């Protein structure tokens, strides 16, 4: 399937390509080398998306191992040691190898098209940052086969469980995370350089589509916090291998310091996984409501506000580690304030729907489900912000329910919405509507069956990351496991839709959706390999 995406187009098919300099392009390598050496933003974008989708299935299989074990009380399939490796790997793969690369892939494909640039600012760096990813995650997955197994300390890898008490493979885990981190950083630099320098003449920052805006802010977040992650794991590496005591109380270190550093990275990281999703939804809802986004400027400001606040809330992940009262209150207040800009976004989307002319094409279905289900995740987030109550919620399935609501029907649904929205641009064909509807409904039902009961399990007292549970949690877990397998299976439908869409289907015109307005809809569908070699003339429209 890989070499089919995106198709190599004869030059004459593109109306926006200038005639000059065409011949030189055809010295390009073919076959595998074409993909290894490509510096084309569309090809690299496709590589990112294919990689991300594969990793989504690998991480999903790990999740299904977990859910299968939790299907009923007792230990049936795996031992607790392997169970911990599965929960850890599921989290790491989904965060670093599925969601983040998916957004980078979409950025690669769409940002140059949306701002009228011929390619990313740093094409060769772009190639390098993609190819680091398979290296990083092959290494990470290989730790499962090493003596003592892979990482088993949760995706948050709290010291000293991840240092003094960690399996021998932890050094490789650190190395792979370093490589993945470098990849994200390079991707972020590239996106910033592209957006700041390569916009079509006349396009001011405040004229950009929101997807570019949210990604620009995300890229700044990445540059600010990925080095902190690199610092933390370097300290772990030194504690493990060079006898330092950053996190070891025995040597005068402090395990809580690890958590501060980790969450200083970790909370902005959460927004790194959701801000681009806001951008995608903000493109889709106006398109299918046939009405401009209600408050473009307030969306930009809200995104920036969320990004800035994300640096001031990290310790809400640490309400029960024994912070002093003053710190507890400070982080409770800042966390609650995040609800305000997030609310502004939701209100904006809904006001955009109000008095629109709405249709329910597949991207719109996913975007609407995003608004509803992400908001439910936001509500449980608000509950978690109440520090006294968090003493009861912390580290239970209530938290698991919360962050899966914001990440699965949140981030992942937004990525899928983006996929359905831009597939006509990528392939030249509309995705099969019937199959897409099946995918949507099975996913929505599956996701809610999986994660909604987790709220109850958590409130009733089930801690997270346990391989076996007391009998009163059995019903919730049974439903969750059934839902998880349903959700997992329904993603195969998505793969089918994508493959069918690449191979054929109803032809899409340049402007594939009636209500779409951004620049990407001015180039032909499928987008030729080279677009906007002559910058387009951009006429600012009322956002």
């Amino acid at each position, binding site marked *: 399937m890989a070499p089919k995406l995106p198709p190599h187009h004869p030059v004459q098919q593109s109306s926006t390509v200038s005639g000059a300099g065409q011949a030189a392009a055809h010295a390009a390598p073919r076959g595998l080398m074409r993909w290894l050496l490509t510096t084309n933003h569309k090809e690299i974008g496709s590589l990112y998306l294919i990689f991300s989708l594969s990793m989504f299935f690998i991480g999903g299989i790990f999740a299904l191992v977990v859910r299968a074990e939790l299907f009923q*009380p*007792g230990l*049936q399939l795996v031992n*607790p040691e392997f169970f*911990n490796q599965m929960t850890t790997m599921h989290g790491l793969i989904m965060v670093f190898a599925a969601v983040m690369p998916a957004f980078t892939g979409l950025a690669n494909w769409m940002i140059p098209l949306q701002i009228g640039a011929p390619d990313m600012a740093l094409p060769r760096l772009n190639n390098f940052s993609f190819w680091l990813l398979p290296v990083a995650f092959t290494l990470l997955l290989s730790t499962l086969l090493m003596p*003592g197994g892979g990482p088993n*300390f*949760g995706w948050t890898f*709290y010291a000293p469980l991840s240092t003094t*008490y960690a399996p*021998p493979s932890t050094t490789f885990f650190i190395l792979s995370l370093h490589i993945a981190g470098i990849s994200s950083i390079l991707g972020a630099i590239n996106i910033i350089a592209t957006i700041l320098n390569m916009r079509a003449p006349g396009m001011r920052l405040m004229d950009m589509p929101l997807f570019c805006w949210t990604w620009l802010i995300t890229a700044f977040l990445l540059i600010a916090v990925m080095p902190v992650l690199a610092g933390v794991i370097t300290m772990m590496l030194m504690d493990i291998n060079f006898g330092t005591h950053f996190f070891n109380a025995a040597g005068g270190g*402090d*395990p*809580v310091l690890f958590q501060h550093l980790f969450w200083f990275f970790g909370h902005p990281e959460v927004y790194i996984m959701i801000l681009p999703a806001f951008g995608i939804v903000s493109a889709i809802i106006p398109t299918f*409501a046939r*009405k401009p*986004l209600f*408050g*473009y400027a307030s969306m930009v400001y809200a995104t920036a506000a969320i990004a800035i606040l994300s640096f001031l809330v990290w310790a809400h992940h640490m309400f029960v580690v*024994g912070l002093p009262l003053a710190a*507890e*209150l400070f982080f409770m207040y800042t966390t*609650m*304030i995040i*609800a*305000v800009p997030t*609310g502004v976004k939701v*209100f904006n989307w809904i*006001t955009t*729907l*109000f008095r629109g*002319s*709405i*249709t*329910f094409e597949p991207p719109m279905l996913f975007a*609407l489900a995003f608004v*509803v289900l992400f908001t*439910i995740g936001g*509500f449980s987030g*608000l*509950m978690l912000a109440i*520090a006294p*109550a968090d*003493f*009861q919620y*912390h580290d239970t399935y209530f938290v698991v329910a919360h962050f899966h609501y914001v990440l699965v029907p949140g981030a992942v649904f937004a990525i899928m919405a983006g996929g359905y929205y831009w597939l006509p641009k990528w392939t030249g064909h509309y995705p099969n509507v019937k199959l897409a509807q099946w995918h949507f409904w099975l996913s*929505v039902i599956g996701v809610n069956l999986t994660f909604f009961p987790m709220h*109850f399990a958590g*409130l*009733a*007292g089930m801690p*997270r*990351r*346990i391989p*076996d*549970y007391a*009998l*009163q949690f059995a019903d919730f877990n049974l439903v969750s496991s059934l839902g998880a397998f349903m959700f997992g299976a329904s993603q195969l439908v998505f793969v089918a839709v994508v493959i069918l869409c690449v191979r054929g289907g109803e032809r899409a015109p340049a402007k594939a959706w009636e209500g779409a307005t951004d620049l990407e809809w001015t180039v032909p569908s499928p987008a030729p390999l080279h677009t906007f070699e002559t910058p387009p003339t951009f006429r600012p429209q*009322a*956002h």
Partner: protein
Amino acid sequence: MRMSFVWMASGLVGSAAAPAALASGWNMPVGVTDLSAEIHSLHMTIFWICVIIGLVVFGVMFYSLFKYRRSRGAKAAHFHENTTVEVIWTAVPLLILIGMAVPATATLKKMYDTSDAELDVMIIGQQWRWRYEYLGEDVAFNSSMSTPRAQIRGEEPRGEHYLLEVDNPLVLPINRKVRFLMTSDDVIHSWWVPDFAVKQDTIPGFINENWVRINEPGIYRGQCAELCGMDHGFMPIVVHAMEEEEFDAWLVERREEAEQEAMGADREWALEELMERGEMVYASICASCHQPEGQGAAPAFPALAGNQRLLDDLAWHLDVIVNGVSGTAMPAFRSTLNPVELAAVTTWTRNAWGNDTGDAVQPSAVVEKLAQ
């Protein structure tokens, strides 16, 4: 299909509200302390605020989705940006949040007030059991899960309190303010009893505080809440809350037991006696890592059965048990097991599973080693 979308989604919103509020076992327990009840009411308040906001927001959304469908001939309006509306939807949530922050702050302040405690209990997390020390009372014991592994493997029917039962529950008086001092011997654990609304991390090398004043006698159960390695799921907490007089009597009884045990360290113990006691200690303290048959779990937990170094070197063997091994999961048991238990478990591990050294390690020898 579009209709079903509307119904489906509104059903979803409804399902968020109804069951959580109704059935017990679906919701946070009210608990048995004033603070747990306060936290429960905070939880319910914020929950209903979310439900109401959700109903309004999703109400407008689904109304719009229904009313302004193009299939019903809706024509798009083109309004956007309205400062008044934007100010309102920024200010109103802010006011609601302030309204929520006030009671939350008050409750949090109470939770942090550990002064004037009448009893201090030190809670120590260890992979994978809890240790409780009643400060100034000379009473201390370990508390491990007592659910048999056969139940976990499904070879026996599971009991009512499957995974939530221990050999030695923490015993506390009702109506007295009990201060918990929490720390850990290895990784971070978290001591959580939902009925007390007490959840606090135990951190190696550092000390945390929390407190409880229980209103109702009873048996309350909880679990470790922070991932702490392989058997994180198997370190439950059971608290037995008693009337005050009953508690005082229990304390005296425990103290006498400990004294008797200490006196037992002076006499000569027979191999069988030591083996019998050692098997119990091993099952409760050692088996979770070194496995019931002493086979260990590579690479973190070395095998004891057939371990040549252990068989050859009694002094080293005892030293590892008494002092632990720095940088590994093996803690020092010098102050958490008494000399009789140390001698018994050393004897057991030297003679069980084909380790037939015939050594009977006497408690008196251990006493000597501890003081040397």
